[in-house]
């Protein structure tokens, strides 16, 4: 009897605590959404309103009409899609080769790649900027895309997964006279589908949210990706809360929706990636 009462109180505590944590996690995002629909100047009052007095799209209209954020949105989409598509191809080919093809120095090169994971990306950024300047790629989309075209994480992820492909399957195709490229595209790639989905979601979100390198290599508003544009907007329009929140919604919503749709793949990648240690 007392056991039932005890566990009911326990359930209340556990779920209550979860509810509080969930509220704290989501509150800033819900507030952003709410303020973005407020009439201009609506949020800067005391006490601060939680909901718009009358919902309006004014801030979104002003945002797209005056700040050129539509262009930045297109830039982000283009850069993230290009990085995802290209790195998926490059990483998958390499990951498959490290798992299934034999070549001199294979293990040593792979160890070297893993060791490179300890070097923070920022160490490379200063010379990388000079290199991009030499190549004439500063302030171009390629300047953002090219360094993202291969990642150790991606190669590692594909390699782990590709190791489970039976050798006999590949060998049989070879005996049938299939070339290595054909084996890769027609036999291996379809078997890698789950890990490709995981890697695609991970890469796209990473590219979309990336800030420091695009901030360095992109130098004019026309080429900015969304995070860089938003950071620069927030400096000019600091007083304009509603406009800034509309900008934040435009930036966050695509990745948030993508995550909600594909979270199974995302969490898988996170868990696989974290055992790389």
């Amino acid at each position, binding site marked *: 009897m007392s056991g039932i009462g005890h566990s009911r109180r326990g359930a209340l505590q556990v779920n209550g605590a979860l509810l509080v944590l969930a509220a704290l996690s989501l509150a800033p995002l819900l507030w952003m959404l709410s303020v973005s629909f407020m009439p201009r100047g609506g949020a800067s009052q005391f006490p601060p309103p939680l909901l718009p007095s009358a919902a309006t799209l004014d801030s979104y209209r002003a945002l797209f009409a005056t700040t050129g954020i539509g262009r930045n949105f297109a830039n982000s989409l283009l850069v993230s899609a290009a990085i995802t598509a290209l790195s998926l191809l490059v990483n998958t080919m390499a990951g498959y080769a490290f798992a299934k093809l034999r070549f001199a120095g294979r293990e040593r090169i792979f160890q070297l790649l893993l060791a490179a994971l300890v070097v923070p990306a920022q160490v490379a950024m200063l*010379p990388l900027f000079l290199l991009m300047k030499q190549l004439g790629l500063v302030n171009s989309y390629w300047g953002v895309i090219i360094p993202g075209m291969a990642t150790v994480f991606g190669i590692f992820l594909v390699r782990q997964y590709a190791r489970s492909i039976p050798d006999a399957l590949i060998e049989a195709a070879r005996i049938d006279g299939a070339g290595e490229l054909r084996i890769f595209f027609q036999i291996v790639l379809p078997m890698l589908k789950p890990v490709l989905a995981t890697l695609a979601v991970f890469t796209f979100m990473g590219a979309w949210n990336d800030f420091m390198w695009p901030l360095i290599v992109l130098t004019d508003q026309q080429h900015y990706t969304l995070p860089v544009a938003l950071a620069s907007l927030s400096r000019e329009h600091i007083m304009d809360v509603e406009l800034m929140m509309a900008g934040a919604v435009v930036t966050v919503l695509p990745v948030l929706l993508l995550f909600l749709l594909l979270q199974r793949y995302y969490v898988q990648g996170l868990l696989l990636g974290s055992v790389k240690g």
Partner: protein
Amino acid sequence: MRTGPAARLAAWTFVAPALAVLGIFFALPVVAALLLSLTDFDLYALADPAHLRFVALGNYLDLLRTPMFWKALGNTTYFVAVGVPLSIAVSLCAALLLNSPLARMRALFRTALFAPVVTTLVAVAVIWRYLFHTSYGLVNWALGSVGIAPIDWLGDPRWAMPTIMLFAVWKNFGYNMVIILAGLQAIPQDLYEAARLDGASRWRQFLHITLPQLGPVLLLVGVITISGYFQLFAEPYVMTRGDPLQSTVSVLYYMFEEGFKWWNLGRASAVAFLLFLIILGVTALLLRAGRRRELV
């Protein structure tokens, strides 16, 4: 296995694009950064490389005499020393709650708690700036309703860094939560059964079963989080621009200003390398401590 020249050529064709990208756009710049940090590469050298001079360890020695570098290192260390334990503690609590057999709607809660992780850092940093606004911010309004006087969160040098810590914890506790949750689910249930039969309390079960079993996972999470937190940059860039009184200038923020505002690329490379060495040192110490306790 066929390992003729044709097969070997095929293998190299498969790895060549990846190795080329990583070699030219990562490995080469890292080596170049080391060389650059030994020169006085500045705005003049940027215009004409003939101005470049070799200064050996000059940049490093110079940095160690620069108060602003120590300030940035101090701020970053403060951020790591308080932020990382706080972040992992919140992640652990959230994971324990989600793993409790009493929890309802786990998938929904997990998604909600994880949502901040996938958001764009710059965008949510902008949100937080308004939430923590001194006069119109929701946080001060909520505190006001329980009688706490308004705090100038991002304008007071004592509060700016703690506010950024809170933000960072909010943004990334979900990441470690998912990893710890997987670790919790891997603990054999019969360990708890045995403890219950022995009459061990919940707290003792946590101390003597859960924590030791989670050891390797916590070590891993610690290493990932520490190296991530040392790379603090976007938060101060968006929320405070390093102010007030340079209380939120981080090492990377300092590197960015030295490199891309003042174009002292030699000096900035030295900053980057020092940060790298510090991260390497701290995580190596942590791993060694873990090894001593046989966690890895």
